[in-house]
């Protein structure tokens, strides 16, 4: 290795460290790729160094502006600043101050393990982490056992692919292949039929203050659903903003999964801006395909701090994209419930089923609704 190569490698390693602090998971093999890329480019040209790193170290649109800021800081000696993203990605929801809980300062505890989240929200946002580790061992096992029973199986849809079947249209290819195996003698006709697949299940869980007593159970329910079809289920939480917790909930162990999700959700027990959150979901995920033909379950009491008209509009979009929209309102279980909150009234025209979700029995009913959606 020549001196110059060693210098380059050292600089790149230092940069990768900066980048990891900024929240971009620049793994060693990616760093190696960057060094290799620099071998083909001019290391003295800042623009080429910039692109060599950006092309090899980033893996997600969310990484890009962190990369840009880190690059400017590391190579330019500037203070990192957040660069506005491309319009389609600009989904940072700025929350309004929650008047009931003015203790915004105590929640912003960083330095936790796991992937750092480059949170860009305003200080006013009530940032609270969720603590799920308060149960005794016995309680935990009991809970896990109960929720495993719930595991909702989603209704099937027919795909355009075929599978061998005992009835259906004649499968020419397989019939010919069968003939081939028998030296060309015609034999029994093979048949085929459309293959079925479970629909995608999307859970949008409101984790705002008014939903706090139910959010934990609903996340456990989501985890149970995830165990059934890990790559066919998507889970998001809604509060003052949208958080995708699918990756965290994929862990097998429910407690660790929930702890991971709890760390990922920055706006636990904050305010609710359902309309904005739903719009963020639809723009970034739903319309691109996640919600298409899916069974979408929205779990919320409909206490909307934003504009109910926006919520209605976005739910209309959701209803047009998805197969079914199921709304779970925990307050529905109470006597004399009428869906009177502003958000609920705006939502009603667009949802196919409204169910309760306040108890274990109600959740098993929800599993049933999902299975027959």
């Amino acid at each position, binding site marked *: 290795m020549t001196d110059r190569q060693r210098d380059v490698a050292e600089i790149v390693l230092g940069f990768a460290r900066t980048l990891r602090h900024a929240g971009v998971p620049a793994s060693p093999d990616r760093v190696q*790729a960057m060094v290799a*890329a620099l071998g*083909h480019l001019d290391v003295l040209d800042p623009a080429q160094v910039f692109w060599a790193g950006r092309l090899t170290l980033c893996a997600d649109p969310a990484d890009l502006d962190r990369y840009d800021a880190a690059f400017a800081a590391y190579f330019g000696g500037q203070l990192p600043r957040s660069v506005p993203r491309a319009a389609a990605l600009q989904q940072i929801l700025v929350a309004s101050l929650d008047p009931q809980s003015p203790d915004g300062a105590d929640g912003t505890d960083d330095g936790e393990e796991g992937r750092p989240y480059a949170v860009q929200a305003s200080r006013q946002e009530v940032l609270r982490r969720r603590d799920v580790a308060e149960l005794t061992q016995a309680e935990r096992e009991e809970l896990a056992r109960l929720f495993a029973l719930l595991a909702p199986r989603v209704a099937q849809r027919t795909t355009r692919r075929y599978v061998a079947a005992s009835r259906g249209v004649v499968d020419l290819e397989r019939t010919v292949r069968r003939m081939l195996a028998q030296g*060309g003698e015609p034999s029994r006709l093979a048949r085929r039929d459309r293959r079925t697949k479970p629909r995608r299940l999307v859970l949008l869980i409101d984790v705002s203050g008014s939903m706090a007593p139910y959010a934990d159970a609903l996340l456990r329910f989501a985890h149970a659903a995830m165990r059934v079809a890990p790559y066919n289920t998507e889970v998001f939480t809604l509060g003052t903003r949208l958080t995708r917790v699918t990756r965290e909930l994929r862990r097998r162990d429910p407690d660790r999964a929930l702890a991971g999700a709890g760390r990922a959700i920055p706006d636990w027990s904050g305010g609710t801006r359902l309309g904005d959150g739903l719009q963020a979901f639809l723009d970034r995920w739903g319309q*691109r395909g996640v919600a298409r033909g899916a069974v979408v379950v929205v779990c919320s009491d409909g206490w909307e701090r934003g504009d109910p008209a926006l919520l209605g509009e976005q739910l209309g979009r959701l209803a047009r994209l998805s197969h079914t929209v199921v709304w779970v309102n925990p307050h529905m279980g109470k006597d004399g419930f009428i869906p009177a909150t502003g958000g609920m009234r705006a939502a009603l025209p667009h949802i196919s089923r409204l169910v309760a979700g306040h108890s274990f029995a109600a959740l098993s009913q929800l599993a049933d609704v999902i299975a027959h959606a």
Partner: protein
Amino acid sequence: MRHAGRVTAASGSDPADPGELAAALEASGYLPDEGLATAAYLALRMHRPLFLEGDAGVGKTSLALALADVFHAELVRLQCYEGIDAAQALYDWDFPRQVLHLRAAEAASDGRLDQAELERSLYDRRYLVARPILRAIEHAPSVLLVDEIDRADDEFEAFLLEVLADNAVTIPELGTIRADVPPLVVLTSNRTREVHDALKRRCLYHWVPHPGFEREVAILRRRLPDITERLARDVAAATKRLRDADLLKPPGVAESIDWAQALHLLGARSLDPDRAAATLGAVLKYQEDAVRARNTVLAELLG
């Protein structure tokens, strides 16, 4: 002229730096920005697939077309969809023709058939139908465009990863077919699903942004040489405003080209309110967007 064992530019030599590749792409009608040119250059030099993400219509697919053009390579396109499998991506045996062959051999042999010989002739390269990946490997140099990988299933990704790692396809009856020159692979995704990290790790990742104003004007002028400079500038400016207007589907370059062409066909030399309203369908594809645009962007843009 082509070097043996290497994808070579139309000029007869490898591009020496990203700038040269950008110039070659420009000459073939594609105007890349610096990032995209560097990405394509590195993909070429490092033999890594290029993973492109970005909004629909920003020119991800066209890049592959332009690269194939620049290198005089065959463009092989693999459009992904739900349920795609190896038989559609790699190769398949042509069963009806095999049966014909079998019957013909039977009729000609008077009952004295050499089993081993027959089987060998049955699984001959002649009866193999090459699907896109095998085609790209056989027809070097080539550009393999794996379009909308996010639409395929997880299992397909793993399979693709395997093929890309070896640049070879193994067919049990025939043996391994290896590429003389590894194809230049371009993968595109619209992010309807998150692609596995394992696949991304093997690739160069580039997010294709919408072009800036001047670049978009240049693209419009290049693609539609007949339109006036004024119309190109007006359309680019209006499209830029539409992109910032919080629409359901912000227009891409493809849409702005369509729009400019529609306006040109109506005889427009600049963007005027009547024609803009009449042709809005070329650039906005949702009724909600059209309503919003008419009330805000177009109203203020056109006074």
